[in-house]
């Protein structure tokens, strides 16, 4: 009875959410946000708390959603006979996509940088930006080795950065990567013990997942407001002088991002045998949520919903891949690191040959994995892994990257979401007609 009473309300909420989040409204919100941001109106600073409030609302359900969804996906994979095939297919497409993204990231911007070089005026502008942005010096060190050790500090490095030694600490500190690792291990353990004892809490997890999706639907009603409140102040932060000085960096970043953002829905459309426009319209919501929140994980529920319900992609690859893929494989970061390195090389007068470009792509893929568990400006730290082997200064790159980060962070997240949505689509294809008809 209760369920019967709740269903119409749930459906009307979904209908309302769908109506509000039509591609046309999302696009209008983006255009409005960009226009407001470019105008740099003073009142935009008051939108920032609204945006922060919106992100906080969205984050409420992310970790519970992951904790429920991943064990369910693990169970689905282990119980299904097709799981090995799905996993192989996912792995294949992940590798192909990684290679393709790394290659495109290296080739297209290097062609641009081959023809463009900074003039004296641009170097002076960049120097001024550096001087203004760094009140501090580039490097601090101590002659006395004991003090030097104190400056370094102590953090978890390597594999220890992803091991959830204390899951409660990881949950309380929003450490999503450790939570993911825990959820996968716990999911495998739950499936194995279920087989032995027959007891399980998977139904309860399914319920928790449904609750999270419902709460997320409530907040989805605010997506257009969130886009305006988050994107406009972010664009306004850039300022015209930053663009003037950093056009050399911004143009290849924008052009290559646009190419990849167009390629991902087009390939999805090809795999699903539907029009690219419909895929583009459907993916616009999760991708723009990524752009506005600059947090890939927040987009996981919406990405799953879009892929499974709107684009009718097979459930299994989506459930298996999307939470883990979006959290761990950062295609946007790969592109960003490659372009940042090529830009720094151009600034310092360093040429890159084909072998250098191959190494650059490889280092960028490796460094993108080193950003696991890091977000915002902290995620720039692994850029040192890419820059330093080429004799380029990480210390001069960081202040410049910070200047352009309001734009770059949006693009990185958009790429992470869009390309990760493409992988299960290519691996799984369209769901069988039975499912499609059932959902209709």
């Amino acid at each position, binding site marked *: 009875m209760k369920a019967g009473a709740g269903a119409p309300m749930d459906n009307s909420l979904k209908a309302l959410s769908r109506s509000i989040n039509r591609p046309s409204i999302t696009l209008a919100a983006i255009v409005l946000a960009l226009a407001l941001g470019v105008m740099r109106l003073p009142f935009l600073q008051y939108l920032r708390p609204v945006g922060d409030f919106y992100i906080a609302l969205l984050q409420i359900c992310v970790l519970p959603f992951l904790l429920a969804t991943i064990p369910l996906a693990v169970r689905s994979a282990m119980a299904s006979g097709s799981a090995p095939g799905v996993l192989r297919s996912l792995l294949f497409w992940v590798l192909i996509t990684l290679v393709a993204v790394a290659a495109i990231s290296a080739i297209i911007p290097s062609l641009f940088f081959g023809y463009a070089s900074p003039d*004296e005026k641009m*170097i*002076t502008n*960049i*120097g*001024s930006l*550096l*001087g203004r942005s*760094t009140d501090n*010096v*580039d*490097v*601090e*060190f*101590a*002659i*006395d080795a004991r*003090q*030097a050790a104190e*400056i370094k500090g102590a953090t978890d490095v390597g594999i220890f950065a992803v091991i959830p030694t204390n899951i409660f600490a990881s949950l309380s500190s929003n450490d999503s990567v450790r939570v993911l690792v825990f959820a996968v291990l716990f999911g495998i353990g739950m499936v194995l013990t279920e087989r032995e004892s027959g007891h399980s809490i998977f139904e309860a997890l399914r319920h928790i997942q449904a609750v999270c999706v419902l709460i997320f639907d409530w907040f989805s009603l605010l997506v257009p407001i969130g886009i305006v409140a988050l994107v406009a102040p972010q664009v306004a932060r850039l300022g015209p002088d930053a663009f003037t000085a950093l056009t050399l960096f911004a143009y290849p970043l924008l052009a290559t991002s646009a190419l990849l953002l167009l390629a991902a829905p087009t390939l999805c459309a090809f795999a699903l045998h539907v029009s690219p426009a419909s895929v583009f319209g459907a993916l616009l919501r999760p991708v723009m949520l990524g752009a506005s929140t600059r947090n890939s994980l927040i987009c996981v529920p919406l990405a799953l919903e879009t892929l499974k319900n709107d684009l009718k992609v097979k459930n299994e690859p989506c459930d298996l891949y999307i939470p883990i893929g979006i959290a761990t494989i950062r295609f946007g970061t790969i592109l960003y690191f490659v372009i940042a390195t090529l830009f720094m090389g151009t*600034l*310092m007068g360093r040429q890159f040959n084909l072998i250098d470009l191959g190494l650059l792509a490889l280092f960028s893929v490796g460094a993108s994995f080193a950003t696991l568990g890091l977000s915002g400006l902290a995620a720039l730290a692994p850029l*040192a892994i890419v820059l*330093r*082997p080429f*004799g*380029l*200064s*990480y*210390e*001069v790159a960081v202040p410049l990257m910070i200047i352009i980060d309001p734009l770059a962070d949006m693009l990185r997240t958009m790429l992470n979401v869009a390309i990760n949505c493409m992988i299960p689509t290519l691996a799984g294809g369209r769901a069988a007609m039975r499912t499609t008809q059932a959902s209709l």
Partner: protein
Amino acid sequence: MGHTTAMFFRGLIATILFAVSIALSNLPALAQSPLRSGPLRDLNSIVEAKVLRVAVTRFDLPSFHVRGPDGTLLGPEIEMAQQIGRALGIRVEFVDNAESFDSVVDHVALGSADIGVSKLSQTYNRLKRVRFSEPYVTLRHALLFNRVAIARAAGGRPPAAVLQNYQGRLSVITGSAYVDFASKNFPDATVVEARSWDAAIENLLSGQVDAVYRDEFEIRRVLKNKPALNVPLGSAVIVDQKALLSIAICDTCSKLQEFINYHIGVTRAAFTLKGLLDSELGRPAR
């Protein structure tokens, strides 16, 4: 007997007087001072002379002291010396022909000036010859380095790994405290002395050296005045090495030292890194 005793005492007194005269003649300040025959130089003798002689470098130290268009000395160091003179109730006379920082110290040590103010760092060698006041500003030691050269030497490590045990060519101003600091802190580096700060920077830009060594203020001032240099040059601060910028005071002037320390204590806020960097006097000459 009485005659013998008298002769003994006369001999004893003569010996003591001779010994005292030798001992006094060996006191460094007196030995070098033109006032050797007078009373020990200190606050009272300076006030009696009604003039405080202040040694400064003959070259400008932007933000600290510079020469105005009419040749008048300006700047917070000059103002500080004049405040001390006013507090003593005597006029201030600047001895502004010191060729180097060490030369300012020489003036004070040799008695041709009572105090010296020219962004002087305390060093062990200088402390052997003059007294120093409490620091009126403390600046951290710093390096300005060629980013590409240091990144190449680092081979993928952070620049600090190379700079900490720097073994390349390092430029410092000749006759400055940084000659001593360089040999102490960078014993494996090849120190190239430059006649001026501009010459040291020129050495860096022309690739003759890969780093220059001075204090945080000077390093940041270079980058502030020529922002384009932020791209090829990096800055590094040595957090555990500090330049204690103090007034050099004649070696016998303990009372004057106490007086100056009191003045610095009540006017300490006059010098801050930000204030010095923002100073109009720190801008390059047009």
